[in-house]
């Protein structure tokens, strides 16, 4: 069975500081990893994904994530946080042949002006 953990329910970061939202996963075989963002009263929006290749993946709105196979992690990062980055962030994992994507419980990111 595959699973994903987002160990922090809430992350607070001052505007302009770098941010990290953590994600670890468990899956049989090579993982496919995703980050989605949800703004209040909206659906989930795709940010970025790792399928294969370069461990550093760049996505929308200046976000990037680093795949670390030995630590089974896929942390989301941004060098300089904006107030508009405040939202709920979901990590998700799948694997080859899976119909289903497994989502984490989400991390609420708040950027403090």
């Amino acid at each position, binding site marked *: 069975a595959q699973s994903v953990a987002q160990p922090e329910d809430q992350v607070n970061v001052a505007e302009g500081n770098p941010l990290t939202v953590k994600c670890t996963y468990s899956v049989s075989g090579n993982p*496919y990893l995703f980050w*989605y963002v949800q703004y209040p009263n*909206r659906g989930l929006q795709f940010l970025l*994904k790792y*399928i294969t290749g370069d461990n550093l993946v760049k996505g929308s709105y200046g976000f990037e994530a680093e795949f670390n196979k030995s630590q089974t992690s896929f942390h989301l990062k941004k060098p300089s946080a904006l107030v508009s980055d405040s939202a709920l962030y*979901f990590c998700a994992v799948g694997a080859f*042949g899976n*119909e*289903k*994507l497994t989502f984490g419980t989400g991390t609420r990111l708040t950027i403090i002006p």
Partner: protein
Amino acid sequence: NAGVTQTPKFRILKIGQSMTLQCTQDMNHNYMYWYRQDPGMGLKLIYYSVGAGITDKGEVPNGYNVSRSTTEDFPLRLELAAPSQTSVYFCASSYSLGGSGNTIYFGEGSWLTVV
């Protein structure tokens, strides 16, 4: 671009009532999904479909039914609504297997309250 469209956005149901959440996508995606989102619980898969006429259960199918008569539409039926079905429901679609690296696109959500 419309993408995935679901209606209604908000609905209040009385216990025991039934209703259908509508979902349509215009991206010609084969795969469609229904998720529910509860606070602190992430997203749970209710049902999914790999194509017209084919549906399968997800993690939490009890109390729900689906059908897929066309590629575009994937309605979710709630029979005999219960307070435990109070949640936010998301319809989603992908070109191919969502768990195999294909991006899943979500609708805006339907907020359902059962009283």
